[in-house]
């Protein structure tokens, strides 16, 4: 018997990272802009999707992957809006991972799709560590959850490129301090955009809609340039 020490230095999540990178190249080949939408249960992910699809589906091709512990209820809500939606049931798993996205992609027709939104499982902790191959992470916080959430669950608020503070129609009935949310998120994530919205009344939707539409357009433009330029490396 010999006792030895093996230096390793490997990222524990490297297997998922590899799958996420594969997904990413598939998205890029197809020219699709992909968003990973995260929040705690009930913050308003599906409601945001419904309203966003209503406003933008005439201008771009949209598809949705719905992650849930169980049921296909959310995918049905999205299909009613006339876009493709695939349901993934994690059967108890608290987050989506790169592999689940690969399975869902088999059921999606990506032709003509400009924007793919992945609704993650409702959870403010676990999904933050698992990349899916998305271009942007977007987090929703509803005012009913309290203004201390960015301090208690920092990673979710640190990694998102946009935070949507939803249910602002309920502000008069809560003690949620919007300025405190803005300040904490600014300190934690200076580049992150903050939008205050209500999926019920539609308040605050204009800035959000133009931000996301812009992102999709920029992505399309960069891709067109990359294709046109002979000097660009092909992978």
């Amino acid at each position, binding site marked *: *018997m*010999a*006792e*030895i*020490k*093996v*230096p*390793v*230095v*490997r*990222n*524990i*999540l*490297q*297997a*998922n990272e590899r799958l996420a990178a594969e997904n990413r190249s598939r998205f890029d080949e197809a020219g699709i802009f992909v968003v990973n939408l995260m929040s705690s249960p009930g913050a308003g992910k599906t409601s945001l999707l419904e309203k966003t699809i209503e406003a933008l589906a005439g201008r771009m091709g949209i598809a949705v992957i719905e992650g849930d512990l169980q049921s296909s209820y959310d995918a049905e809500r999205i299909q009613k809006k006339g876009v493709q939606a695939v349901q993934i049931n994690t059967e108890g*798993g*608290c*987050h989506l*991972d790169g592999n689940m996205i690969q399975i869902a992609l088999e059921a999606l027709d990506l032709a003509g799709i400009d924007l793919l939104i992945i609704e993650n499982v409702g*959870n403010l*902790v*676990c999904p*933050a*560590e*698992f990349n899916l191959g998305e271009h942007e992470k977007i987090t929703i916080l509803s005012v009913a959850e309290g203004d201390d959430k960015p*301090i208690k*669950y*920092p*990673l*979710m608020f*640190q990694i998102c490129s946009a935070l949507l503070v939803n249910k602002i129609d309920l502000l008069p009935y809560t003690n949620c301090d919007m300025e405190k949310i803005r300040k904490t998120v*600014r*300190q*934690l*994530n*200076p*580049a992150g955009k903050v939008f205050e919205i209500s999926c019920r009344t539609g308040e605050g939707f204009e800035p959000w809609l133009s931000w996301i539409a812009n992102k999709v357009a920029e992505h399309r433009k960069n891709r067109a340039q990359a294709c046109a330029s002979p000097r660009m490396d092909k992978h």
Partner: protein
Amino acid sequence: MHELSIAQSLLDIIVDESNKHGLERINKVRLRIGELAAVVPESLTFCFDLVSRDTVASGAVIEIEKIAVTARCDKCDLSFEVKDRVFECPKCGEPVLEMLGGRELDVVSIEGETGENDG
């Protein structure tokens, strides 16, 4: 909850490295986990005990080194530790976008026994 899938990924790496290096029993695994990583160490070691039962890593000690959050100001070229999760340069007060460390979830080393006899 996701510590279970992280523990499983950790075990996969350990088994892979054990096969590569001919380890038959793992005594200790050293990890580096960033302060901002969404992982609770107690929960990870608990889950690891579960998933490693009846494997080469059964009973192995998991040693976790916590890594502070650090960032770099590109105006001052200053690297510093981020205190209280405020990503702001302590010198010029500007918001800082470049994180250097604090999200690690790494295996650093594995210690164990090979089946070979000495001499």
